[in-house]
């Protein structure tokens, strides 16, 4: 026992001996004994101090007492305030803070002192006023090991007088004898809260924390760690609490790969380390973790020897994966754009060259007698030219510069049309080992689209599916309507909406994973040329889908088959009813054909004259304007691409200066450009692609002439 403790105890004893003859002191001794017993049995700090205050009130016949107690550093509030009598809910006292200056002051004088006799340090001078105002008579600090736990104050006696000296001494003795018990209660309270506090912090750490002993036994695990184990091996969670588990059993190889083994090896060699991007599968779901470990050094008896932290980085990992996929898609789209641009340019030149080949056979056939021996050859020329023209249309579609007539259409109708087509029937007959099924969805809304292009999508997909099953199999085409927030593949962000969904699946050879993203590239085909022969089948599909503001998903497993899924935003508009009345092809009106290419001019003039029109020609825009100024015509057939500086648009602008209501038809081997659209804005002219057949151009002219706006000539 140290000197200080002996002298303290002696002082307390002397104080009581002095008062032993007094009955009141006996009462105090009894109170002290009871306090000690209570403090030993129920170390609840707050309750004990309350009882102490009541005992002091009873002992000294006063009504008002208070205690201001310092809380541990980590506690929410800096102090705890307890009181009786008038000091209850006393805001002035409640607001007193045990500042470090005040702490030093109380530690210095240690004993019960009259408020009026305290020598307040400069920084605490306001305390005197507050304590006096509140009617506090005596204050005693609770000091243990030079640490201020709090202060206890007593009010004046019932008579309104101050406590007598002997009462103050007794008060001091009482407090000094209970301080050690209060201190242990305080520390117990502090420790109880502290362990809860640390546990709270640990359990709010987002990472899974596992603390192990040097022989690999689990010592502590936090909530996040528990969740990770539960996610991968739910059966283990109960055992984690009940049994002593070793690292290798917790991170079982079946669920956690062999990293635990690698880890144990690592920790014997290094103090810290990490495994980043550990991928663990749970069924179809992939989880990614960063694993860190570090040894713990220290002298604490309760320490663990090393901790492992599992940081769940699945979201980051998924986002990175998605970003990579998006990047690939973007690159793919850019590649397609570049290829499309190239194809578009070639298509323009080819279209012009094909003009006569497509147009003249019809004219020749009209003029040839029915029994002419060369009719067959001419037909073949026409067929070949048309096929060539189709390939060019593919190229244009691929370039996504082809002009689409968008109108409300129904997928079921388009698919049915293809399924009933002679080409498909022939395919089915040729390949009897392929079971072909169409399951039209009920109530599939219309989409805004171009029938011929969508027909092409259906055709290309079905033909591809047939080709993917050389040994036979099952081909299923189905439609449905679905409300989508995201795609199954999840790679592309889509607008939440109702979508008409087209599914084409086969049980064929499937597509290798690394090839899936490339199948839309032109000429990427792994098979022999498809039926269109262009090698552009899926590239065309891609372009058309994009033009229809559609999305796609591809699901494929090599050896098991492929499913293409296309999503088209639905429209509420109804399909236009088919125009049953065939318009008369020809007419007697006057037409001016404007084209800078002689052959083109000639063929147009020949075709249109053959059906009765009065045709004039102009070899450029200037000549056309000049002609029209002197010779009004009913309609102008205007080539879009002519000499630079005075193309179709410039010509049209001049023409409408002369006749604001001049009817015109724009023709071009190129797809509809911004300039074409501008013309259309000015005069709502129809647009006809070159090379055109007699039927197409005649129809366009007739419909323009018979339009609502009448000729003003």
């Amino acid at each position, binding site marked *: 026992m140290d000197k200080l403790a002996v002298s303290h105890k002696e002082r307390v004893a002397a104080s009581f001996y002095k008062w032993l003859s007094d*009955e*009141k002191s006996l*009462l*105090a001794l*009894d*109170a002290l004994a*009871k*306090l000690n*017993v*209570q403090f030993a049995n129920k170390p609840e700090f707050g*309750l004990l101090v*309350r*009882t102490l*205050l*009541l*005992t*002091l*009130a*009873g*002992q000294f*016949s*006063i*009504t*008002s*007492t208070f205690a201001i107690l310092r809380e541990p550093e980590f506690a929410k509030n800096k102090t705890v305030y307890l009181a*009786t*009598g*008038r000091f*209850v809910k006393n805001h002035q006292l409640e607001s007193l803070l045990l500042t470090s200056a005040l702490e030093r002051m109380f530690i210095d004088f240690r004993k019960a002192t009259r408020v009026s006799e305290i020598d307040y340090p400069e920084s605490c001078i306001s305390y005197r006023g507050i304590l006096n105002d509140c009617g506090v008579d005596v204050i005693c600090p609770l000091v243990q090991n030079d640490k201020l736990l709090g202060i206890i104050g007593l009010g004046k006696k*019932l008579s309104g007088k101050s406590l007598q000296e002997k009462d103050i001494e007794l008060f001091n003795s009482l407090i000094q004898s209970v301080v050690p018990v209060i201190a242990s209660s305080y520390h117990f309270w502090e420790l109880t809260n502290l362990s809860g506090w640390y546990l709270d912090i640990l359990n709010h750490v987002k990472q899974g924390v596992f603390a192990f002993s040097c022989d690999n036994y689990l010592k502590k695990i936090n909530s996040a760690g528990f969740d990770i184990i539960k996610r991968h091996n739910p059966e283990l969670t109960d055992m984690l609490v009940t049994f002593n588990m070793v690292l290798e059993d917790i991170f079982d190889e079946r669920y956690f790969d062999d990293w635990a083994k690698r880890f144990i090896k690592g920790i014997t060699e290094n103090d810290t380390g990490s495994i980043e991007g550990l991928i663990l599968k749970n069924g179809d779901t992939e989880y990614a973790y960063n694993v860190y470990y570090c040894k713990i050094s220290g002298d604490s008896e309760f320490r663990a020897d090393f901790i492992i932290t599992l940081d769940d980085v699945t979201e980051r990992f998924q986002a990175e994966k998605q970003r990579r996929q998006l990047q690939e898609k973007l690159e793919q789209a850019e590649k397609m754009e570049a290829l499309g641009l190239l194809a578009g340019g070639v298509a323009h030149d080819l279209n012009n060259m094909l003009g006569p080949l497509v147009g003249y056979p019809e004219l020749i056939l009209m003029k040839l007698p029915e029994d002419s021996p060369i009719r067959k050859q001419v037909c073949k020329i026409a067929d070949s030219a048309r096929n060539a023209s189709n390939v060019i249309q593919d190229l244009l579609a691929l370039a996504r510069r082809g002009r689409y007539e968008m109108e409300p259409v129904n997928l079921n109708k388009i698919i049915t049309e293809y399924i009933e087509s002679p080409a498909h029937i022939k395919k089915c007959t040729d390949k009897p080992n392929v079971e072909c099924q169409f399951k039209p969805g009920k109530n599939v809304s219309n989409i805004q689209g171009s029938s011929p292009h969508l027909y092409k999508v259906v055709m290309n997909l079905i033909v591809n599916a047939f080709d993917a099953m050389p040994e036979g199999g099952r081909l299923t085409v189905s439609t449905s309507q679905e409300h989508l927030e995201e795609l199954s593949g999840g790679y592309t962000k889509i607008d939440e909406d109702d979508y008409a969904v087209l599914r084409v699946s086969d049980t064929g050879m499937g597509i290798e994973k690394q090839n899936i993203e490339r199948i839309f590239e032109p000429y990427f085909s792994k098979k022999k040329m498809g039926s269109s022969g262009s090698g552009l089948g899926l590239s065309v599909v891609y372009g058309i889908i994009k033009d229809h503001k559609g999305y796609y998903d591809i699901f494929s497993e090599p050896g098991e088959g492929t499913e293409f899924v296309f999503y088209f935003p639905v429209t509420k508009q109804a399909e236009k009813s088919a125009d049953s009345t065939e318009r008369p092809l020809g007419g007697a009106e006057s037409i001016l054909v404007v084209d800078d290419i002689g052959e083109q001019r000639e063929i147009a003039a020949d075709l249109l004259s053959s059906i009765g029109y009065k045709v004039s020609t102009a070899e450029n825009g200037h000549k056309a304007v000049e002609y029209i100024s002197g010779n009004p015509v009913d309609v102008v057939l205007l080539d879009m691409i002519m000499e630079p500086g005075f193309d179709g648009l410039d010509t049209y602008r001049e023409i409408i200066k002369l006749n604001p209501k001049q009817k015109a038809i724009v023709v071009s081997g190129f797809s509809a450009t911004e300039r074409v659209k501008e013309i259309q804005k000015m005069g709502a002219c129809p647009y006809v692609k070159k090379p055109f057949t007699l039927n197409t151009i005649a129809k366009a002219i007739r419909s323009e002439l018979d339009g609502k706006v009448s000729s003003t000539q």
Partner: protein
Amino acid sequence: MEDKKISKTAVNDTTVIVKPFKTLDNNNAHEMVDIITAVQEEGYKMIIVDMSDLEFLSSAGVGSILGTIENSREAGGDIILCSVPDSINHILEVLDLTDYLTIRESKDMALNLAGTAN
């Protein structure tokens, strides 16, 4: 009722009888404070502490009454002790409290005083 250390019985809207059994000391003094404070907050002005079954009153027990009595008096009421056994009365005498506290010999007298006061 018997196993309770402190019972509470309302007589009317303003008067309530609080009765500690056997002992009123460190173990239940804070409970006594809680009960008295609660009835004060409920609006009872006159609180009669029936000590007829009390065998022991410690300093803390005395403190539980002193620590709450001013509240009642400020509200125009009081805490009246009744049926105080001799041994306990002796303690109150030692503490010089017999003049300060309102003490009545019997419960009826306390009730009578409470009624008069009202």
